[in-house]
């Protein structure tokens, strides 16, 4: 047993366990295109170089399902029924596989700063509260009805 490894922190690899082939990348991006649809001011995943960087991060975050996600996307692209119909079938027949595939692809897309901006989400930012912010929000009578009602606990 390696006693130098960390016990309470997952040790994720820094890079994917293997290079994705161009057709696997194409399959993942094409599946993402269908999942996230179109937006008037955003590039589709398959058109965005940044999506592929984000995809690598997402695949690493779910490294436990790496091969399954890649295989599912490849099978979807190869399916004669088309991507959308095959995705719908996967969602019906194998919700767990669909969940992880769609999470990885949607998750990668939602990392992109331009996507975050478009949906009005700034990412987890540091926003320290002003010293008087809670007083300002609470000392304006909003608590009066609660206080006026008086104690609500049962005294044994």
């Amino acid at each position, binding site marked *: 047993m390696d006693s130098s490894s960390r016990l309470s922190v997952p040790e994720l690899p820094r890079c994917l366990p293997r290079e994705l082939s161009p057709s696997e990348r194409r399959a993942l991006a094409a599946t993402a295109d269908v999942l996230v649809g179109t937006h008037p001011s955003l590039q589709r995943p398959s058109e965005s170089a940044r999506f592929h960087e984000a995809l690598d991060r997402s695949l690493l975050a779910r490294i436990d399902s790496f091969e399954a996600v890649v295989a599912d996307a490849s099978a979807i692209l190869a399916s004669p029924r088309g991507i959308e119909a095959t995705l719908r079938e996967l969602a019906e027949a194998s919700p767990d596989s669909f969940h992880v595939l769609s999470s990885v692809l949607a998750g990668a897309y939602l990392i992109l700063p331009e996507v975050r901006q478009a949906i009005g989400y700034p990412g*987890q930012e540091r926003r320290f509260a002003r010293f008087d912010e809670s007083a300002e929000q609470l000392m304006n009578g909003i608590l009066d009805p609660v206080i006026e009602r008086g104690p609500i606990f049962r005294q*044994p």
Partner: protein
Amino acid sequence: MPSERCDVLVIGSGPSGAIVTHTLASRGFDVVCLEQGDWVNPSDFPANQPEWELLCEHAWAHDPNQRKLPADYPLDVSASDLTPVMFSAVGGASLFYGAHWLRLLPSDFRLRSLDGICDDWPISYDDLKPYHDEVDKFIGASGLEGDPAYPEGLTYPRPPHPPGPTGLRGAAAANELGWHWWPGANAIAVNKTKTLEPCARRGTCEWGCPEGAKSSFDLIYMPQALQAGAKLIHGARVREVTTEPGGLADGAIWLDRDGVEHHQRARVVVLCANGIGTPRLLLLSGGEAHPDGLANSSGLVGRNLMLHPNCLVTGYYDDAMESWLGPAGQLIHSMEFYETRPEHDFPRGCKLHLVPIPGPLTTINVHRELPFDAVWGDSFHGVAARHAGSMLWAANTEDLPEESNRIVLDPDLTDDLGVSAPKVEYQISEDNWKILRFAVERMEELHRVAGAAETFAVELDEDQPGHLLGTARMGDDPASSVVDSFGRSHDVPNLFIADGSVFVTGGSVNPTCTIAAIALRVGTHIAETADRQPIPS
């Protein structure tokens, strides 16, 4: 390998272990704390990365059976309605907790007297109050005094966090309904407090605070304990509490990461391994003299497990409310339906809390129950954009103790060092289901009055029973309890328990505030009675 004998051996370094370790080390006792996990830095937490929501799905999952870190032990949940969640590290599950910080109410200690159900605790609200006050001061708990859900005299050393746009929206709805609400009480630093940094409201508290602002007990109490001279051994999985022929505890056998056995000898042993880890250890201990486990003459070790089943309703609003703004933590809480009410067809009730929803992938996940076309394809950006106008009401519900809900040793499953794993046998009672459904209806009502455009209810949240209680209950009668009111085992007078195992009933407030006060009371009692303490020869 035998060790020097210490005065006090503490097993587990979560909130209870850190407080006991600090209390005794700062009074000059020679304390060793054994912890199976190791240190986690705030910079390790997933919320430092943009893909943090994906990291939380598996690698940093709340469920130890999912994330399977070397520090974790597996749980057999094949006979349980719920999968308990926890974290194994210096600081224990407080690295993941939301730090909602509320005390039990006076009625919680008196269910037999008030409602004719369960048992009264051997202690009261007032008995714990001074210990609560001391812990709150130490960690700089934040909240607003004057909460009419509590007796007078409940004050907080630091002001509450701002409820923000979502908290205020929920508060206005509660006002309209005439229901109790109050600014959230949290164990999260509003400003720099000892070893804690100020909260930056990232809202990712339940997957580790990247700022070091939340009172996780690796960041508060444990550093002060180490400074006072305590010794912490991490990567130490305790397999057994050992006893000498006279029946007193004389230490514990622990395994290092290479599986090498060590024996830490001690005058007094304190178990702080949580409501699952503690009964597991007692059942593993005692040898042939105690085939049913150590300290188990009552037969109650492992029984009466309470898990506070949670339910939740997420609401989506048409206005942007910066829904990710923390802490999470609770922005506001409501105790309106906490107490037994004559008009209800169930005893006791629930505690409601409004919390932010940190990331947009969560919003996609919440919508997954809708048909494919309502979430994916051309609906996707619209759904993701709804994130900015979301908020979550969630409830802890009170599950009453039942002997059949219990922890036993699994006959087959072991941890990675070969130690028997716990099996959880737990069924949600019919009364508890009634509270869950009732709470969902009330939270739907809160959203409706607040103007939610759509709501999504989850009657049983599978990711949240991190409240592990009742499996070595306290009481005055050794036939019906495992420890006395100071956590001292009735059977083994130098063996103490200071974690949530000792709860007689669970209330429905999040338990760590009470666990912390109990741990301080246990630690203080050990110190104050040291001259009379029977110790092994």
